[in-house]
């Protein structure tokens, strides 16, 4: 009974402390919440792309009587049917545009060269559109490249058709006279203008886009990613909570209440069992709260109760053993902060908790993960998320508990020697 009393006292202390609650529950939810908002939560399931401001410098000087391809490009980019993230403005000179780009008031500059129309309407002529962009941006420039590619396809398509026609006609001995060339070029240009206009927006678009959402109650990929990140954060902060609770041993030693406990009829083993039970229970309660709140707030589906129970058991067992060993290494209560901060950060990082949402990590890094109990606790939650075979989840729990037992034994031996 005394062990239970000690455990309940420590448990109450941990959950009455606003600081402990903030660190054990608030911070992991805060981190996952920020990522949830960053990658979709603020705009529903489909986060709108950030605005991308483009300046177009039209230096084109078309020959008299020719079409004005530079203006056509400006009109194309400024078309109201363009995506709403693309904001296009004209700039008078390249220098003006570059100044605006350097001042970060635009993210890209499209430069239409002076001989743009002339080069493209001349047989064999060629031209280049230059796009300079803010080097910190990658998404907007790549999308702009595709949008410009659609325009250039139209401009150069007729010429390419004529080149191919020339070769075909030469092989067949037919002359590709000016009339035939004009018919081909005109026909192609009309087709392209019509098709590009109807490509996505016309009455009968050639490409149809349809969005499919998950059936009600099923989990999206974003939720899945968040679940993995949340699992990593949960293991990290459960280990933190466990070490903080185990610190009560040193705190009581520092305040002199541990010495008082030792002179009661309670055996040392009973006292330390109570402390260990408090750590284990704190981890279980903290895990349950985080599982419940993350399900409610982010829609994470942690799998059925058997998997959750197994993952909780493995995590709490590993965390309890780990905590006792860490506390055994700390010389005094005042020294606890840096040791705990350092050990938890380094072992959490090497145990894969900070990269729980990443894919394609190096094999060597994954192998290193395995020598830390945090990695096994994390694996337990991943198996819960996947509803993996219970036998596999059971094996993971056994490894986690074995880790916990070994670490606990080492910690217990050190503490027994200290308080002999």
């Amino acid at each position, binding site marked *: 009974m005394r062990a239970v009393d000690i455990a309940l006292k420590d448990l109450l202390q941990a959950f009455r402390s606003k600081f402990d609650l903030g660190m054990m529950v608030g911070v992991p939810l805060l981190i996952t919440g920020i990522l949830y908002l960053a990658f979709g939560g603020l705009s529903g399931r489909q986060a*709108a792309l950030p605005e991308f401001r483009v300046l177009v410098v039209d230096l084109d000087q078309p020959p008299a009587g020719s079409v004005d391809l530079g203006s056509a490009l400006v009109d194309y980019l400024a078309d109201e049917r363009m995506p709403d993230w693309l904001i296009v403005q004209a700039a008078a000179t390249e220098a003006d545009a570059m100044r605006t780009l350097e001042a970060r008031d635009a993210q890209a500059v499209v430069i239409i060269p002076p001989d743009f129309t002339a080069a493209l309407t001349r047989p064999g002529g060629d031209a280049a559109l230059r796009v300079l962009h803010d080097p910190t941006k990658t998404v907007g420039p790549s999308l702009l490249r595709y949008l410009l590619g659609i325009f250039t396809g139209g401009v150069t398509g007729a010429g390419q058709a004529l080149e191919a026609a020339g070769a075909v006609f030469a092989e067949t001995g037919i002359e590709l006279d000016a009339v035939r060339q004009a018919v081909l070029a005109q026909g192609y240009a009309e087709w392209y203008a019509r098709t590009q206009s109807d490509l996505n927006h016309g009455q009968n678009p050639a490409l149809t886009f349809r969005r499919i959402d998950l059936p009600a109650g099923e989990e999206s990929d974003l939720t899945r990613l968040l679940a993995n990140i949340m699992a990593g954060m949960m293991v990290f902060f459960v280990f933190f909570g466990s070490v903080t609770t185990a610190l009560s041993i040193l705190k009581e030693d520092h305040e002199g209440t541990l010495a008082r406990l030792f002179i009661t009829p309670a055996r040392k083993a009973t006292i330390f069992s109570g402390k260990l039970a408090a750590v284990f229970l704190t981890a279980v309660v903290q895990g349950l709260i985080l599982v419940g709140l993350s399900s409610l707030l982010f829609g994470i589906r942690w799998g059925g109760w058997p998997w959750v129970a197994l993952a909780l058991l493995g995590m709490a067992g590993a965390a309890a053993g780990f905590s006792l060993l860490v506390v055994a290494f700390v010389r005094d209560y005042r020294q606890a902060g840096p040791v705990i901060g350092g050990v938890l950060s380094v072992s959490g990082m090497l145990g894969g908790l900070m990269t729980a949402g990443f894919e394609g990590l190096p094999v060597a890094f994954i192998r290193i993960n395995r020598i830390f109990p945090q990695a096994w606790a994390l694996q337990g939650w991943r198996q819960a998320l996947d509803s993996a075979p219970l036998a596999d989840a059971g094996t993971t729990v056994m490894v986690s508990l074995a880790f916990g037992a070994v670490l606990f034994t080492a910690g217990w031996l050190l503490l027994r020697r200290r308080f002999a």
Partner: protein
Amino acid sequence: MRILDLALKDILQVVRDRRSLLFMVLMPLAFTVFMGFAFGGGAEEDVRISLAWVDRDGGVPAARFWQLVEAGVWAQLVSLDEADALSQVQSGELDALVVVPAGFSGSLFSGSPLKVEVITSGGVQEDLVRAPVSQAWLKITGAAEAARMIVETAESPVSSGGPAAHDAALLDVFARVLDEADRPALRVEVSPCGELERVTNPYNQSSPGMLVMFAIFGLVSSSSLLTAERRNKTFQRLITTSLSRGSILAGHGLAIFILVLAQEALLVLFGQLALGVDYLREPLAVLLIMVCAAIWLAGLGVLIGVAAREEEQVILYTMATMFLFSALGGAMFPLESTGRVFAQIGQVLPSAWAVEGFQNILIRGQGLGSALLPAAVLLGYALLFFTAGAWLFRRTDA
């Protein structure tokens, strides 16, 4: 002079505490290397969307359509059974599914191509899929239309020999037009402003990001001195001296400023010497951002130190501030990869201005002038936090 004495006392206290070494030096160094390793470089070549491709047609033009989409740097294609593909798109494992209908190749040469259906996942922005598929579709249909017109214009000499020869001629001309398209008369040359090396070094993103993040985290050590003073009653002793309350806050603020600046200097040197981040290409601009960021953080540190009643609260407030400011401000990951609303909120934070100040020099290759606006904004935030700290200090003291 007393302000200096107070600041020196604080600095000695922090430097003598082993925690400082961990929070202010070792952890930021480890995380800078780790984040650079995790995020990698070469963003221009990133594959950003994954497309499942279901070809019900099986013809040559349909295969060329696949090749054209795949040739872009934007999409990674996988060929899957339709039911599996649909299920993976629905779950968000894949971004989209492109279904090329049966009879597509034949319909291309009739002038009325069959519709291609693109099914996108609920979790992806549609424009990311629309851009590469539309461009490739226009190329393929354009080549087919050109082939149709050429063969029709050539009439009997090319198309004689019945429907089979006609179809073969169409395919042959179609291939030739596409070959011509590989040598475009109009090129689009996209390049980032500045030197490529600056863009591709992943530590140019992670080094200043971690610098800002851990400069906030370092406040755990320095801000807790204010709280410790109150706990140890030395603060009560201090206010019985001739030192004004403003001077006491200024002394603590000065200590935090010097400590943050020293931490920043260490991380800048590490970035320069170990990670190839060229901070020293514009030493004055870098120094200006470092100083202004340190002043801002001194203000924040004073506010935290005054607001927290216990040292434990300092840790909690600092960690919450660190995660909020560094994630929202683009210190942990680029704001470009987040949604529009998140990025707009993030851009007004002081952390975003500090990161931007460094990025102007490190990635954009700009000079001292580019550091002025971020520096001014950081000073504005410093004033705001100092004022809030002083107000709270007077209120709690009263």
